[in-house]
């Protein structure tokens, strides 16, 4: 297996060129640039807001310098608050081809689209010569998320992902789980898995913050005593989601854009810090996937019971269907049928190994269902974070 060698020492499993709008007003022009390259690895990202935001800048910097990204074209209207000069300099510092088009300076829609397409064509020619390097499991970063969950998620797809996570960690990969709002009730169990004593209270604090944030937002999906689908307690419901993390020690906590410093299992804290503002911690699964990718995820394992169809810009999404009936209905969108566990046709161990094998296939250049179907979803909205505390990462 080989990967694309990057100057920071990381390696990519894709060689994507990203076109990035820096305000919603530049979205159409950026999309038109991308549309000329259907079938190529040219993906659209962006941030809609006109006001600057430290989190959004950091997200786009981490995404544009992600190991799966080879080149980046920024598309600015010209008057928005995003610091396009800094972002461009940060991308160029990594040696990647990078450019900026400012619509107000270029002379309008048509001229900017034409110049953008010309720039991308040049970048694609340059990327054809990207050096390759040996790629091992220990070069991989893998994230996981659950979406469209039902009563089967926590007994099939999620524990199977947990098994795959254990195998990945055993082989030296970095793996990341998240959704602290759906870990309420698991904090003590999680804290007991902390790799260092100082990390345990930080893990608990993450979940407490999530509970506080969701409560303020009036979000009702964390109600206790919900007996639907056989769930008896909130702890049980959370454990279903938590089982995606497997059984490795927890090496650290990340916030969006933090890259795990070494092999192991990490918790990504996606809930904003400080007073509640900007809205819900996650407006959809898509932004969470983007946050996992900003932490370096080459691949995301997405478990679903009801059936999601999404993929992502930059990094492939492997969809693992928990419910055998959903799988039959949406099989074209699924990569792994974990519902077989319910039917007695496979064990968690077998599906866990299948997921692990699928990750390696995708890393070696195989394509996920969502890639084949053209899914390249992306979403980024305002958030605020404080830097990680000193106990959060291994020394």
């Amino acid at each position, binding site marked *: 297996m080989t990967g694309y060698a990057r100057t920071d020492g990381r390696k990519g499993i894709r060689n994507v060129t990203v076109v990035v709008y820096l305000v919603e007003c530049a979205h159409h022009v950026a999309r038109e640039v991308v549309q000329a390259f259907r079938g190529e690895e040219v993906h659209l990202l962006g941030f809609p807001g006109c006001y600057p935001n430290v989190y959004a800048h950091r997200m786009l910097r981490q995404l544009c310098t992600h190991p799966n990204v080879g080149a980046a074209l920024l598309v600015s209207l010209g008057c928005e608050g995003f610091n396009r000069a800094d972002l461009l300099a940060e991308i160029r510092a990594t040696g990647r081809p990078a450019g900026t088009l400012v619509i107000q300076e270029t002379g309008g829609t048509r001229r900017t689209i034409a110049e953008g397409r010309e720039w991308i064509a040049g970048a694609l020619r340059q990327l054809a010569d990207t050096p390759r390097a040996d790629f091992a499991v220990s070069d991989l970063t893998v994230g996981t998320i659950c979406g469209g969950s039902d*009563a*089967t998620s*926590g*007994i099939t797809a999620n*524990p199977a992902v947990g098994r795959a996570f254990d195998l990945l960690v055993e082989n030296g990969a970095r793996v990341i789980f998240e959704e602290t709002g759906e870990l*309420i*009730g*698991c*904090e*003590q*169990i999680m804290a007991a898995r902390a790799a260092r004593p100082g990390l345990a209270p930080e893990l*608990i604090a993450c979940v*407490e913050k999530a*509970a*506080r944030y969701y*409560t303020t937002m009036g979000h*009702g999906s*964390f*109600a*206790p*005593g*919900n*007996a639907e*689908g*056989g*769930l*008896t*307690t*909130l*702890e*049980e419901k959370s*454990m*279903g989601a*938590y*089982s995606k993390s497997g059984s490795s020690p927890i090496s650290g906590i990340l916030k969006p854009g933090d890259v795990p410093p070494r092999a192991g299992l990490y918790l990504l804290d996606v809930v904003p810090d400080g007073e509640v503002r900007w809205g819900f911690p996650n407006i959809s699964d898509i932004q969470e996937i983007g946050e996992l990718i900003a932490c370096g995820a080459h691949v995301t394992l997405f478990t679903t019971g009801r059936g999601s169809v999404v993929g992502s810009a930059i990094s492939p999404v492997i969809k693992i269907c928990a419910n055998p009936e959903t799988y039959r209905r949406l099989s074209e969108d699924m990569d792994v049928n974990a519902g077989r*566990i*319910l*039917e*007695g046709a496979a064990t*968690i161990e077998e599906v866990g190994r299948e997921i692990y094998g699928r990750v390696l296939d995708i890393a070696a250049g195989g394509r996920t269902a969502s890639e084949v179907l053209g899914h390249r979803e992306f979403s980024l909205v305002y958030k605020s974070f404080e830097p990680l505390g000193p106990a959060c990462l291994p020394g």
Partner: protein
Amino acid sequence: MNEPTDARLLRLHSADNVLTVIATLEAGETIRVGGDMVAVAARLAIGHKVAARDIAAGERIVKYGAPIGSATRAISAGEHVHTHNVQSDYIPTFARGEGAHYEHAQP
């Protein structure tokens, strides 16, 4: 180890004292739990739980290898394990509100 061989019940972790129903069980059907045959008292849908062995009142309910609550009374092997005989051990940081919302305790 005496694993239940009933294909309609799933043990998620070796430490678990509950099994998950993975095919709907109708009232009157019998299931094999820990070597014993137990009659199903009432219909159990996919995702519900039965006791893998006799569980004493106050004993922790373990699923996924982790405690998910405590038995409020004695539960016999094969019996339905749910809100009628289990309560949350939810950590004291959070309190259960009347309206089924978790409320964060004042710092």
